[in-house]
């Protein structure tokens, strides 16, 4: 079954004078439990594509289907519910909320589900154990290394057990050793939980570790 199916995706940014085509004619299918990477030079539309897949941005044309269901409405509430249920995000700059402890950060996706506080806590703790940070629950992000912060971000992304994990240059801000650790973690998630992983990366070495590489150039797929 295809977990993600993009068909004829267009993304055009229009201002009064200029029209910038960010994505054009993208047809992409990602199977359940598949781990793919998206590569391409800066500005080629990698992140835009990831945002369209992650329902953070609406395409100007074409259609998106998640888990076999076509996204019919781009209404704020509909998208929010879909994202919450189906998708986890990992960002290059982690985007942890600095005022919240590690476990509070991990709990964020669960705040938007009907769930008791105790249950939330339990799931967040389990997610942190899973990324090897069970002992750092009550630390604050600033007390952790970059690699640890990204692990927290991954715990936050998987705490709600989404079927899709979208990672935007997850190792971009880390040294190679830490980058390798994060890659290992993502591969483990894919292997053990059958999570579909889509990763944007500049790093060919890491892209080669994924099952498939999608290459973009000037907003078009080139392979």
């Amino acid at each position, binding site marked *: 079954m295809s977990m993600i199916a993009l068909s004829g995706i267009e993304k055009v940014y229009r201002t009064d004078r200029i029209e910038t085509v960010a994505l054009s004619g993208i047809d992409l299918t990602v199977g359940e439990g598949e781990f793919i990477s998206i590569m391409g030079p800066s500005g080629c539309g990698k992140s835009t594509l990831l*945002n369209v897949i*992650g329902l*953070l*941005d609406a395409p100007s044309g074409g259609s998106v289907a998640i888990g076999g269901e076509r996204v019919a409405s781009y209404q*704020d*509430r509909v998208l*929010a*519910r879909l*994202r*919450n*249920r189906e998708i*986890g*995000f990992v*960002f*290059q*700059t982690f*985007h*942890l*909320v600095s*005022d*919240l402890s590690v476990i*509070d950060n991990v*709990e*964020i*996706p669960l*705040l*938007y*589900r009907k769930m008791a*506080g105790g249950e939330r806590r339990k799931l967040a703790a389990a997610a942190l154990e899973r990324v090897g940070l069970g002992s750092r629950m009550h630390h604050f992000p600033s007390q952790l290394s970059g690699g640890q912060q990204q692990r927290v971000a991954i715990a*936050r992304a998987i705490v*709600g057990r989404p079927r899709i994990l979208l990672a935007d240059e997850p190792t971009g801000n880390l040294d190679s050793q830490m980058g390798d650790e994060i890659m290992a973690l993502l591969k483990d998630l894919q292997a053990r939980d059958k999570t579909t992983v889509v990763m944007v990366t500049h790093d060919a070495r890491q892209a080669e570790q994924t099952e498939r590489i999608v290459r973009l150039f000037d907003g078009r797929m080139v392979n």
Partner: protein
Amino acid sequence: MLKSYLKLAWKVLLRRKFFTFISLFGIAFTLVVLMLVSALLDHVVAGYPPETNHARTVGIQFASQRGETWRRNGFAGYGLLDKYARDLPNVRLMGVASMPEGVFSYFNGQRVKSFLKRTDGVFWQILDFQFLEGGPFTEADVRDHRFVAVINEATRQRFFGGQPAVGRTIEVDGQRFTVVGVVPDVPILRIVPFSDIWVPHTTAKSDSYTKEYVGNFIGILLLDDPGKLAMTRDEFWSRLRTIKLDDPGFQRVDATPETVFDTLGRLFTGDGTGEGTGYGRRLQIALLVAACLFMLLPAVNLINLNTSRIMERASEIGVRKAFGASSRTLVGQFVVENLVLTLVGALVGFVAAGLLLGLINASGVIQYAELSLNYRIFAWGVGLAVLFGLLSGVYPAWRMSRMHPVQALKGASR
């Protein structure tokens, strides 16, 4: 979820201490002023002793006499109350009292100023004075023109050095009265019961007041059922229509039984006549509008401060949106945060207002004032703080929640 919001709100407050201080100062100052006004208003219109029957009591305070070219406005005259306000339907007791007038006594070579109120005996039945010694004068005392007086504690202190006063005499305004009772001081803002010395109205130097329609008296009506005030009022009005005035310059007399709050409304929003009803509601609206306007400036200020912090929290907004927060949920979160800020400000303001009221009471600016904070004012304070929190929180929250998640995440990475 709420717990998580509150935790975050608290941390956000602590993160930018200067911002928090400025915000809290603005909120607290605004609320202090509003709570002082509320406390004053509460002092005037709420049912403190001796006005324990407050909820069932109405007054006929203002009266006006008018003709084609003339109009005379003032307090009700004794004649009007005596002839037309007795035995009204739904009225259990009707008492009269003059407005307190300044009188002088010469005592130990000094001129002492006091307030004197002339009342009937029913006055003491409607109002629930706790006598420190002795008791009130009676209808019989009034009927028989007896020169007896009830004095307050401050007067007992001034004239008798705080020693028991019942049975002793005081000379006021050239008249000598025997003290029959002593009561606690009543604040000057409680205009119906307030005075230093209360004497039978029949001891007045002239009886011309008994014929006046507009004069210096108020009628105090203890109702059976406050819900049926309209019935009492209509009967009183229909009686007034029967008045035939001797003076050809005047054709009709108007006065209205109403609550103290309505009277206060008449004073501030009316034209000073005894006609019409519904002034309390007008005052209520005027006060609410004034409070909102007063809160507007600091609220706009807080809106600016809050809005300018949007970028600071862009990352958080982006993350929350990415992980499933709808715009509406985010509005809820930011409004809760702002409410926490304003409620903390309200608490600071409440304490500050309490201290200030204590200072006002001690200063004697308002005679015998016992301004205090109570659950009503606290409720007002909290209500105003919530209103303020909503006023200053909703717009920035709406702006924040409308941020595009991609832009929010990008803005934060920049």
